[in-house]
């Protein structure tokens, strides 16, 4: 956010959050101001108990001690004042400029080893080790509705909602938006990303603001959402990962976190209420696809341990090791690897299709006057229950777009075919037992892999013809032989042991969990019977 807007945004956010909580406290069944402050005190104290005893946390402890002390005998007016101070504190922290050098001393989010590297390797010196950075331009293939995206960015505020596989996504998105000639997108990034030397360098292309997921207070979450809303009202294009976190399984997201999507609707209604010149907020889903994923091993382990829910923030994965990022990036470049960013057709905040000129249309292509959706007896206004449903509808539409517009690389196709064949060779349907023993199964013959891939490619082409997948779903898959050759080349490059390797005319599984991770990109398309003919017969 531009400097001149920052202070204005803080004042607006604080005023709205405090006012909303005051109204809530006055309504039947709403939380009192005292309850809100008590929740903030409790959750912040819990967090601070685990925080290092440094100057910043001492100052925070002092603040909350004072709030607790004053709350004991505070009048209603004084309670509101305390609430305003706590809200202002959160808002300034989120909006404020972030200095990673200061941060490195004040928290222990980054493991000690990585912290040392942070000092030892500056982003620029790290980047200078990458051969020919502009090459990235050739690596990133941007496809889909890019013209529409650029057109809408001029007509209203864009809310970009990409799939999330890797922390590399932020770099790729930032770079892609730059390539498209778009201004930086506002983006709520986890604190750990700010401390990463490579990533923080790229953060400049994404107008990133800080999200501290360790802060659990309801007040903090309200401030975050209100900041996103206000920034959209100010015309800042936003980006958020609707899955909430990196896909642990490798699948395309099916369940979304709707909170920030709802901010788009709130911003739109506020724009209508104040008769803004360009009130529209456009949701633009997009998919990112990689032949190899840097953190694949950690992510699939996390998924299989069913720790995904509790371990929302992974801080010790491949992305916290700069040397590994370097190795990964070098190898990607040596592979002549491509990363695909596919921009989906846009939606309005109600889930309707939007034309390049910003007009919403219904399923039959008839133009709509979308402001009618939020019309009440008092003009355009909020209705919490209704708006929650609208956002749910929009979320479903985003999921449909993401699933339609996923791109499948050779590693996904090869992993899907080999995984399916290996499973068809065993009668044991227990996935976990299969993953433990897959490397002992003796592999699969290329004589089986090639026809299986042929069937898979044909099934995908059929789905493309039917419009169930986008035209660019399999951009690099010419024929089964090419898929096998490229898939093996990728698998043999970065992961150790490789997910798959060739010995003679057979393919052997080196890491079944990785194979599972890459094949999952195609799950949910009902393609299993295409590989495992027994499933087809039973169907």
């Amino acid at each position, binding site marked *: 956010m531009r400097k001149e807007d920052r202070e204005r945004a803080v004042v607006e956010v604080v005023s709205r959050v405090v006012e909303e909580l005051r109204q809530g406290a006055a309504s039947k069944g709403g939380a009192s101001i005292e309850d809100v402050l008590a929740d903030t005190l409790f959750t912040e104290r819990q967090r601070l108990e685990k925080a290092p005893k440094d100057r910043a946390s001492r100052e925070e402890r002092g603040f909350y001690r004072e709030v607790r002390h004053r709350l004991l005998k505070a009048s209603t007016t004084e309670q509101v004042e305390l609430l305003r101070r706590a809200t202002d504190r959160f808002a300034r922290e989120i909006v404020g400029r972030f200095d990673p050098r200061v941060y490195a001393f004040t928290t222990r989010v980054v493991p000690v080893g990585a912290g040392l590297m942070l000092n030892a390797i500056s982003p620029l010196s790290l980047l200078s080790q990458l051969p020919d950075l502009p090459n990235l331009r050739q690596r990133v293939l941007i496809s889909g509705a890019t013209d529409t995206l650029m057109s809408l960015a001029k007509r209203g505020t864009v809310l970009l909602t990409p799939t999330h596989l890797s922390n590399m996504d932020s770099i790729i998105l930032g770079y892609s938006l730059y390539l498209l000639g778009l201004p930086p997108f506002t983006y709520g990034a986890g604190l750990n990303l700010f401390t990463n030397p490579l990533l923080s360098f790229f953060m400049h292309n994404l107008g990133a603001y800080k999200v501290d997921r360790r802060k659990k207070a309801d007040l903090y979450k309200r401030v975050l959402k209100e900041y996103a809303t206000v920034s959209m009202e100010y015309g800042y294009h936003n980006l958020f990962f609707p899955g909430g976190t990196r896909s642990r399984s490798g699948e395309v997201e099916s369940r979304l976190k709707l909170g920030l999507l709802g901010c788009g609707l709130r911003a739109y209604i506020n724009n209508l209420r104040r008769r803004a010149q360009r009130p529209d907020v456009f949701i633009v889903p997009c998919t990112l696809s990689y032949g190899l994923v840097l953190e694949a091993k950690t992510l699939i382990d996390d998924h299989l341990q069913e720790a995904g829910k509790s371990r929302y923030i992974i801080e010790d994965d491949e992305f916290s090791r700069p040397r590994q990022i370097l190795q990964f990036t070098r190898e990607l470049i040596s592979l002549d690897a491509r990363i695909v960013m596919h921009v989906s057709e846009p939606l309005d905040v*109600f889930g309707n299709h939007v034309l390049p000129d910003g007009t919403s249309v219904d*399923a*039959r292509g*008839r133009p709509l006057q979308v402001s009618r959706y939020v*019309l009440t007896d008092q003009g355009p206004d909020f209705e919490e*229950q209704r708006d929650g*449903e609208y956002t749910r509808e929009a979320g479903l539409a985003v999921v449909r777009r993401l699933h339609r517009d996923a791109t499948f690389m050779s590693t996904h196709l090869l992993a899907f075919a080999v995984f399916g064949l290996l499973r068809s060779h065993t009668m044991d349907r227990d996935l976990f037992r299969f993953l433990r023993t897959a490397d002992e199964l003796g592999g699969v013959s290329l004589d089986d892999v090639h026809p299986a891939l042929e069937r898979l490619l044909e099934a995908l082409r059929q789905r493309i013809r039917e419009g169930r997948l986008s035209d660019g779903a399999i951009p690099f898959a010419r024929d089964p032989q090419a898929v096998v050759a490229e898939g093996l080349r990728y698998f043999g490059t970065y992961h150790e042991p490789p997910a798959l390797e060739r010995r003679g005319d057979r393919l052997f599984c080196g890491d079944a969990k990785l194979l599972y991770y890459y094949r999952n990109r195609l799950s949910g398309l009902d393609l299993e019977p295409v590989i495992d003919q027994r499933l087809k017969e039973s169907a």
Partner: protein
Amino acid sequence: MKALDKPVGVLGGGAFGTTLAQLAARAGHRSMLWLRDPKAKALIAEGRENSRYLPGHRLEDAVELTTDLAEVADRCLLILLAIPSREFRAVSRNLGDSVRGDHVLISATKGLEQDSYLRMTEILRQETCSLKIGAISGPNLALEIMRGVPAATVVASRYDEVVRLAIAALRTPAFRVYASRDVLGVELGGAVKNVIAIAGGITRGLGYGDNTLSLLISRGLSEMTRLGARMGADPRTFSGLSGVGDLVVTAFSNLSRNHRVGLGLAKGRPIEEILDELGQVAEGVPTAGVVKDWAEETGLDLPICRGVHAILHDKASPREVLGELMALHARWEADNRRID
């Protein structure tokens, strides 16, 4: 509610559409009843009664008649659709030309689209821009409601506004309106009970007693509930007005079209002849085919629905089918597990 400053729109001049328009008028609102056929409109306008479906029941003065769909969309914010399922899509598509985002659309049609197997609210979602959509269903024999005897219905929507508006529009001293969020359950109950009702008519036609009918209703309800739960509905919905409530009235009542289809089948009459004589739509006939396919897809065992389908479409003998049902393997009642 300002929406009710405007008339309540009702599409469909059949028995239930006319009844809904009358109910809204009795609840103190103006209503607009849309009929496709200008002759039918003229006939009703002349005698102020729907002599074809509801003879002897004079329409309230507040019921206005029209054949102009765009006018209904223009003048009404709440629109109820009581259109036979086979025409539902076409009417919805035409309505979609005029509908706006602030309209509230409620389907009063109990049935499924034959080729797509879609529910009526799904069709409304496809054919209009409306999001505030709901469904109304229950034990609502039109003639009884017109007579003003106490009755109730349930309106289901994910939107509170839809439910509140429907209650305000239709509630009278003789008609209660309950609310539900389970649109899927309410619509499935309304559709699938028609198949069980045909079976009810068959048992009556064969001269079996109340024990048999009660057995059929109980086990039919079990089939509806299991199918609904498998498809994502709330099983509790089937214990309500749109489930067992509608099933009982449809299976017992001679006023039910589906029940009358069953009576005819029991006498050995061909289905085409029965439907011809009925002159109205019996939704249970096409729905039986849909339910049979769903049962096969989901692997559920629904013997009553399967039997009705066999009688309707494979010309199976009603007596033999009922004999087969009685000879089925023993099962636990609560969860339908087979006893080995």
